[in-house]
């Protein structure tokens, strides 16, 4: 109740703030203060609601549907921050997180805008439109995190394990008790009727529901605590350039907006870029497939606004520079459009992730949220797209004022413009591929890789060249002279790469060449600058970062190798030039997981890795945690495949050992044995997944001397041990042992009872404890992370410089 009220109040304040600011823009004098107070009121209420949600999570208030669904008591054992991260475990909470970030960003924005002339009312009027939409999203009508578990009149079935059994003797409980026949799982149906009975008996729902469902185990790690907040912070910051663009269009004044919006675009893209990278690192470190980017539609949808925003940084620079000639500067329309589109694509990303349109295309896509939410998302993205593009169309004439177009072909202006074009091309590629599933189509990942390869080559070359080209125009000879050192360095680097790195594909060679060229140009200039003014370093640091990133991608994605290794305990196996030995296995983390120790040796260096596996109760499957050995020039990635505990088995190994597929038959000693079908009771699957005892049968038909019988052989699993049954028939002088039963196939051993047709040997097989892993080499993958971090650092250096520039000289 409290939470919902706070959020509804916040929505009211947001709308009031928006109206007040808009009126102030229109000239009503005293509205500015009301706008400010209303905004801060809203922000305080949003922070209060978020604090309350965290409080409710930390005190396990399971009467809230959201808290019941995404947290549980055992999360506390992992630490307070893990428990707290269930705040954004589901849709409602992630909207709350986005709202919280946006509200806080707005506080900073309001202060920033208030010091810059008449900017505040225009910018805040647009900004509060965004916060209002978000507040509607988390309001009681849509995805409210404070909805009670019994709000649905049909009720909700809660497992009895999550309930306080001491209250089960209350008289009315029986009429709400249900059992699922197939699984024998008991439930209590909690609906408004139940809650009123409970209240009359003097108990609160909080006292009755004592545990929750919890989070998917793949979310129980450090990255869950930082990737979503940083990503949403980036999304929130993307709201600002949009607001600045509309503000400029409202006033029809485009000179100041460039330097005012610039630091925000830089900071926003820096944060968003960092957030995206953290998602990739999470996938690499935890998920076990050895990669960090799957071109999954949800991953892609966060990349698109980033590419658009970064593209605009380049043309904003041109607009700023060309304003010196008088007028609004070049590419004003472009910059306004890109500023609008950056936020529109953030909204599009939200739409793709949450509306369910991606359905089968993405591991991330969630359930269909319902018609109303879907329509509201469409309304959200539609409103902002129309507002943005509509305003630009409205002001088209003023924006098309004549600007002297006298730059030469070899000018930095043109190079930056081309950079923007290439980045937009990249965004378009990702957009087309990502949106394809909406139309029932999909693209193979090679679509992205093939298209990006030439683009990456062009970008790297352009980057190197553009820093050597001067503004306005350059002399070709002079340009060639200036690129000599970097050019030679790049060629040398590439030659070394071909000789020692085994790089032989022509496209990779060209990419390495251009990337190295860009790297050396940037380093060269950076060194010169460092001696002077540190703040000017931003762009060069950022480009060094991206060059290193591309080198890392080339190494790890293109030149990685993998192999499956079966490691018998104690026996060393050689792979990739390293000696690997599986030495020990033991339970860890409170007996919840099984860790396997592997020693890795090469020459005098010795290392130790510990991949883990465990059975998760959450979704009844085996979870595999990889172990990564990070060395100087590569990572060795260990993904556990399987584990055979080994042991001694006595086999009476008959040479009459047959594999039979369902529907086939075999002959033995005058008898025809046919494998008719499997026999498995419906509850077997459930028993299997719960780790309980179960059995599966194979029905065989035996025909001998005109007699037909049907028999069933069983594979029994008791307490984790497997047992197979056999059938003996004196009449037919036949013994059939079931030796194995798996997908579609059984293995049987046939023998005669009088020993006449038998070729048996008694064997004792000892299989050793064996760990199977997929080991892969990932050359230079560290550059992927380091590159992005350096790039983000560069963004922030630039931001500090542009922040200074943004102050109006009034």
């Amino acid at each position, binding site marked *: 109740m409290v939470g919902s009220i706070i959020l509804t109040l916040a929505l009211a304040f947001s709308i009031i703030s928006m109206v007040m600011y808009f009126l102030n823009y229109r000239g009503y004098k005293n509205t500015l203060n009301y706008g400010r107070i209303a905004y801060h009121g809203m922000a305080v209420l949003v922070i209060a609601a978020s604090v309350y949600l965290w409080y409710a999570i930390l005190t396990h208030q399971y009467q809230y549907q959201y808290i019941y669904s995404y947290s549980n008591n055992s999360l506390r054992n992992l630490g307070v921050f893990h428990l707290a991260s269930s705040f954004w475990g589901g849709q409602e909470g992630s909207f709350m997180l986005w709202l919280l970030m946006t509200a806080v960003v707005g506080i900073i924005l309001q202060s920033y805008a208030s010091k810059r002339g008449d900017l505040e009312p225009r910018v805040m009027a647009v900004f509060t439109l965004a916060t209002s939409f978000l507040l509607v999203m988390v309001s009681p009508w849509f995805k409210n995190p404070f909805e009670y578990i019994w709000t649905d009149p049909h009720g909700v079935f809660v497992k009895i394990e999550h309930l306080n059994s001491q209250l089960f003797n209350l008289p009315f409980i029986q009429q709400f008790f249900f059992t699922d026949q197939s699984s024998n799982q008991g439930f209590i149906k909690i609906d408004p009727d139940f809650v009123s009975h409970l209240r009359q008996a003097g108990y609160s729902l909080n006292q009755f529901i004592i545990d929750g469902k919890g989070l998917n185990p793949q979310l129980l790690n450090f990255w869950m605590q930082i990737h979503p907040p940083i990503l949403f912070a980036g999304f929130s910051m993307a709201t600002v350039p949009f607001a600045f663009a509309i503000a400029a269009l409202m006033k029809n004044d485009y000179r100041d907006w460039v330097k005012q919006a610039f630091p925000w675009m830089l900071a926003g893209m820096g944060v968003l870029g960092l957030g995206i990278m953290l998602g990739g690192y999470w996938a690499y470190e935890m998920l076990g497939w050895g990669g960090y980017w799957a071109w999954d539609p949800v991953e892609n949808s966060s990349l698109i606004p980033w590419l658009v925003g970064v593209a605009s940084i380049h043309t904003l620079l041109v607009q700023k520079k060309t304003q010196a000639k008088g007028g609004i500067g070049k590419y004003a329309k472009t910059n306004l459009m890109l500023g609008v589109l950056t936020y529109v694509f953030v909204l599009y990303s939200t739409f793709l992730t949450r509306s369910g349109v991606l359905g089968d295309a993405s591991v991330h896509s969630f359930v269909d949220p319902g018609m109303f939410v879907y329509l509201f998302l469409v309304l959200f993205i539609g409103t902002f797209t129309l507002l943005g593009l509509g305003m630009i169309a409205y002001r088209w004439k003023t924006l098309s004022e004549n600007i002297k177009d006298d730059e030469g072909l070899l000018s930095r202006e043109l190079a930056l413009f081309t950079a923007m074009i290439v980045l937009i091309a990249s965004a378009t590629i990702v957009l087309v591929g990502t949106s394809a599933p909406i139309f029932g189509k*999909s693209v193979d990942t090679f679509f992205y890789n093939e298209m990006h390869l030439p683009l990456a080559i062009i970008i790297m070359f352009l980057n190197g060249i553009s820093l050597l080209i001067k503004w306005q125009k350059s002399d070709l000879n002079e340009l060639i002279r200036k690129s000599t050192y970097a050019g030679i360095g790049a060629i040398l680097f590439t030659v070394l790469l071909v000789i020692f790195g085994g790089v032989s594909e022509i496209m990779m060679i060209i990419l390495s060449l251009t990337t190295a060229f860009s790297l050396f140009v940037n380093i060269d200039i950076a060194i010169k600058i460092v001696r002077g003014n540190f703040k000017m370093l931003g762009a060069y640091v950022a480009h060094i970062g991206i060059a290193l990133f591309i080198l890392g991608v080339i190494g790890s994605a293109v030149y990685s190798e993998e192999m499956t290794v079966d490691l018998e305990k104690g026996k060393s196996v050689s792979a990739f030039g390293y000696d690997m030995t599986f030495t020990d296995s033991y339970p860890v983390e409170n007996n919840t997981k099984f860790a396997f120790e592997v020693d890795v040796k090469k020459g005098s260096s010795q290392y130790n890795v510990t991949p883990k596996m465990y059975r998760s109760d959450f979704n009844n499957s085996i979870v595999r945690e990889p172990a990564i050995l990070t060395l100087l020039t590569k990572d060795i990635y260990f993904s556990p495949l*399987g584990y055979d505990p080994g042991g001694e088995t006595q086999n009476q190994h008959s040479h009459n050992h047959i594999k039979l597929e369902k529907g086939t038959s075999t002959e033995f000693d005058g008898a025809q044995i046919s494998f008719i079908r499997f026999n498995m009771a419906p509850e077997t699957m459930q028993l299997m997944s719960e780790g309980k005892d179960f059995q599966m049968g194979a029905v065989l038909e035996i025909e001998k001397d005109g007699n037909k019988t049907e028999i069933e052989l069983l594979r029994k699993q008791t307490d984790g041990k497997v047992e197979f049954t056999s059938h003996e028939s004196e009449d037919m002088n036949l013994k059939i042992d079931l030796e194995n039963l798996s997908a579609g196939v059984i293995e049987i051993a046939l023998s005669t009872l009088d020993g006449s047709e038998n070729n048996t040997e008694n064997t004792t097989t000892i299989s050793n404890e064996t760990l199977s892993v997929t080991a892969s080499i990932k050359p230079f993958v560290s550059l992927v992370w380091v590159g992005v971090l350096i790039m983000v650092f560069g963004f922030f250096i630039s931001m500090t410089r542009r922040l200074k520039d943004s102050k109006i000289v009034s």
Partner: protein
Amino acid sequence: MKNKYIFGGVIIVVFLGLMMYLFTQSNIEYVDDFNKVMSTEKTVKATGSWVKEKNYNLDNQNKTFSFFMTDEQGNQMKVIYEGSIPNNFESATSVVVTGKYQNGYFHAKDILTKCPSKYEEKTANSSL
């Protein structure tokens, strides 16, 4: 000045053309009817669920993982995936496999598994 626009225009046309071409080359359709899957030569994304009664099989020799899938009409087919079992396979309900149906099996080069929705509460038979 006009030259720049022609130059830019040509580049855009070439780019778009290349993209459309590559898109059609890498286009993979979603197919939920296994009869269609089994009768085509093309690479497709077959959607369905896996048949839990027919257990899955891990072949360590060939490093493959095989299981059976069924579509909504009840058509079944065997799937062989060149790789290891996906992390959450045992609890997966719907599965999307990318590949081609050949020689009696669906050769999958990619698997996507989806878990049942968290909100799926069982509507139980009432019993006391």
